[in-house]
């Protein structure tokens, strides 16, 4: 499984959405991605990629796309 597939799968499982829906998703677009769901997403991503996000990155993480940018940073080194 590529990193992108893994990343997308976390969204699918956390928010019960399809891969296609996940790709355009933004924070608070759907009920499941509220502040509680956000912390669930963070811990699921952390487990999947064995990383730990900084508080600032958790706060900035406000869309599927933005999340990819954050994970690709040197601190986490996830290549997409």
């Amino acid at each position, binding site marked *: 499984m590529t990193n992108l597939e893994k990343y997308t799968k976390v969204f699918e499982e956390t928010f019960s959405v399809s891969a296609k829906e996940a790709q355009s998703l933004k*924070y*608070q677009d759907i*009920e499941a991605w*509220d*502040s*509680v*769901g956000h*912390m669930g997403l963070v811990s699921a991503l*952390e487990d999947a990629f064995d990383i*730990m*996000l*900084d*508080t*600032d990155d*958790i*706060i900035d993480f*406000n869309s599927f796309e933005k999340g990819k940018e954050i994970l690709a940073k040197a601190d986490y080194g996830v290549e997409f």
Partner: protein
Amino acid sequence: MTYEEMINIPPYSLDADEKEKLLTDRLTKLTKLHQKNCPEYARMLGAVNFNIEKIKSYKELPFLPVRLFKELELKSVVSEDVVKTMTSSGTTGQAVSRIYLDRTTSSNQQKTMVKIVSDFTGSSRMPMIIIDCPGVIKNRAMFSARGAGILGFSVFGAKKIYALDDDMKLDVDGLKEFLKKYGDQRILLFGFTFMIWQHFYKELLRLKEKGITFDLSNGILIHGGGWKKLVSQAVSREEFHERLKDVCGLEHIHDYYGMVEQTGCIYMECQYGHLHASIFSDVITRRPGDFTEACMGEPGIIQVVSAIPESYPGHSLLTEDEGAVLGVDDCPCGRKGKYFKINGRLRNAEIRGCSDTYADKFEA
């Protein structure tokens, strides 16, 4: 200055003059915004012939009593833009405040809170023990103040456990296992004052007598929600600190003052026991007779201002708490801004606060 720019200023870095300029500019803008977008608010300003052109300082801006959010649906955005409604903690039968948040306000609350708390804990995340039950955050559409507090602080937690089950019983095995894994790291503990005392401290004490001990000397505890019940049980701040240290070695303890009507702008207690106002908010103490500003050290009713609220007119509020300003810009901890203490609730005020409303169910 926009809030985006403001949030990049370190929270305790401005002296009184700089902060007054910043807050006056921002709060005057917010007053205009709410006057334009919230008809009820505009009518209230009209009723007192308020003229914004005459305002020289944010201290002259009108304040609404916090109670008003229980009686009126006050918002400055259309209903479609409301992403979250937060409610105050209230005892059974009490009316609760309803605070309407749009995306911007909700996100600024979380960002601000992270800036403030990081100044005390550092920005790295820690294993976290939440001294409450998981049931608190179940209802996601209607957020209680208790759930919002837990969730807000959760950003600082890496691995988390709830120390209590839904019957408010200590999860002894869970806690043991957690400390076995993470006990050598710095651990964040968060909870509400009375719950910590009633369901955590007392249980740890009972277990200690049976020879079961927990070492939390690596812990940093942040707690809030009011002291009323503990004061009535004659537990002072000093005793709270001493007893927790005795029972589990916990030494780093910070109280905070805050309310759901101004979520995000919390007032953290430093190691000298002073509550601190950041650059994002301020407290003004007012004399009960004529609402003039009280002097340093003189007890007064607490008015709070916050630079955050854009979706509801809650940027300047008169609380039902009494307190006193202790100093400005010169706390030995090095943080600039006002520092103060809370004496308690005004007489005849309702019981509120996450800790106190919960505690109201217990006999003294």
